[in-house]
Structures are given as C-alpha cells and as structure tokens.
C-alpha cells in the first residue's frame, strides 16, 4: 500500500532551518509569513501498513525531538507523542 510519512520537529523545539527561511522572506518581498517549520516527507510502498508506526518510532522519526504522521490512501493518523522541549530561546 502506498503511504506518506510526514515528520516534523516537535512543538517547542527550535528549528534553525525554518528560522533561516523565515528571515530570507522579507528580502524577497514576502511579508506576513511567520512560524516557518521544516520537516521531511517520506513516500513509500508498504506490504504491511500496520507496521508503519513501528518503522517511524525505530527509524524514520526520533520520538524525542520529532512528531510523525502516517497517511494511507488519504487517511491520516498522527503520532501521539507528548509535547516536550525547552529549546526555544536558548
């Protein structure tokens, strides 16, 4: 089955990549864009979609710092990872 896995930095964790993009935007004439966060999209074909969450926990995402979402044929399921972090502002 075709699946998409969306991985993003957990809420509260500083994302320097997003910040770099955000800082570039005004110079290009884009205003009013904020809270830019950069994640990863993994597309894959899985014989056993039931094991995708395990795959995410073990490899595709680091549950300490990232949340993930699995999308199967348009139906999304989200990792229920607790919000952690204190990195902001450090």
């Amino acid at each position, binding site marked *: 089955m075709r699946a998409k896995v969306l991985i993003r930095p957990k809420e509260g*964790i*500083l994302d*320097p*990549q997003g*910040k*770099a993009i955000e800082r570039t935007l005004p110079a290009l004439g884009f205003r009013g864009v904020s809270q830019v966060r950069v994640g990863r999209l993994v597309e894959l074909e899985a014989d056993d979609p039931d094991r995708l969450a395990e795959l995410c926990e073990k*490899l*595709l995402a*680091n549950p*300490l*710092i990232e949340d993930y979402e699995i999308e199967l044929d348009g139906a999304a399921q989200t990792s229920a990872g607790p919000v*952690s*972090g*204190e*990195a902001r502002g*450090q």
Partner: protein
Amino acid sequence: MTFGVLQFPGSCDDRDALMACARVGEARLVWHADTDLSGIDVIVVPGGFSYGDYLRAGAIARFAPAMEAVAEHADAGRLVLGICNGFQVLCESGLLPGALLPNDSMRFVCRQVDLTVESTETAFSGECRPGDRLSIPVKHQTGRYFAPSDQLDELEARGGVVLRYAPGENPNGSARDIAGIVNERGTVMGLMPHPEHAVDPLTGSADGLRIFASLASRAAEPAGVSA
C-alpha cells in the same frame, strides 16, 4: 589495554582517533560490518558523517552490525566513547539520553573552544581535576544537545555531565552548556568536541590527550563508576 575505533562509510576522524588511542595503548580499526570486538577494552565511535548522515545524523549507523556488538559491549559494562558523530550515534542508539539538534546559529562551527571539567569521577576524566579548563576543537553542524528538562535535571543530579562549554563558549546552543555526558553506569560517554584533534602541542593543544590517558589508566580495571 586495547582501543577499537569503529569505521563507518563516511567516518572521517577514525584515523585521528586511532592515532590518539595509539599514544596511550594498543589500537585497531573495526569495520562497520564486523561484529568481533574480542580483545577490545574501549570502543571509540569516531566523528564524521556515517552513512552520509542521511535521515538524521547517526540514525542509520545505529543499525550497523558493529553497533549491535557495541551495544553488547556496553551492556556488559565495558567502555564506549562517542565523539561528535559518534555521540550522535550513541544517542540515536539509546545508549545515551537526549539528542543532538542543528546548531542554533544555523552555521557549521569549526573552532577551538574551552571546556570545563564537571566530573572527574568517570573512567573518561580521571586524569583531570574538577574545574580544569580544556582547549579542544569543535567542528559540527548538528551539535546542539537537547533533552526534555526533567531528563536534564536527572542527568545533572546524578553527575552525568562530564564536560560543559566554558561561560560564553557554547558554540551550538546546547542545553545548559552541555558538551559531554556519561551514562548512568559511567561506562558510555559522548561529547561533541574532538579530543583526538588535540593530542599534540604542534596543533595548538594537547588537552584532549587527557581523555585518552584517563581511559588508558582505567581500561584494564573492572568496569563501573569509580569510587
């Protein structure tokens, strides 16, 4: 005592680590596909870009056959030192708590930094005195140590922080200026700075040698936290 330095495709500090270890003991390289660690007292997981650092730094290397052997080595209470990418690999493996995130500066940093020795009660720092300052280079883009605050409290409470960036020296935004940590048993250490690049005054500092000398004087003893 014998050091084994892992070598992944993409490692680049394996030779320097090997030479640093050879100054204080016997040392050999261990290819990532090998699982035979017999005769090795201390495993060094070196810096570099193991498996291209694809996905996340250290995420793929964690599953190397050699790393399974390293996990057993660590479970048996034997010594493991992870430097830079090696630190990232050990965190990804769960052998050390926390994770390394991209530097807050958004830049690759490559410079000499001062570290303060927070704990001399480990096999990795016995040749230092508390409060010593060590001048050791860093070179990384993903070196911001992170753990949830309750885990950081726990780490500090048990004396798990071995090295901290000296005041004003934190090059990457690491939580609480943490540069190097040790596991609960005191047998697995990870640090972002490169002690193997600071073993000869010719290249600016020999302070890094004290980490290897500490290991050499402890490696032959039974594992565990020193008294």
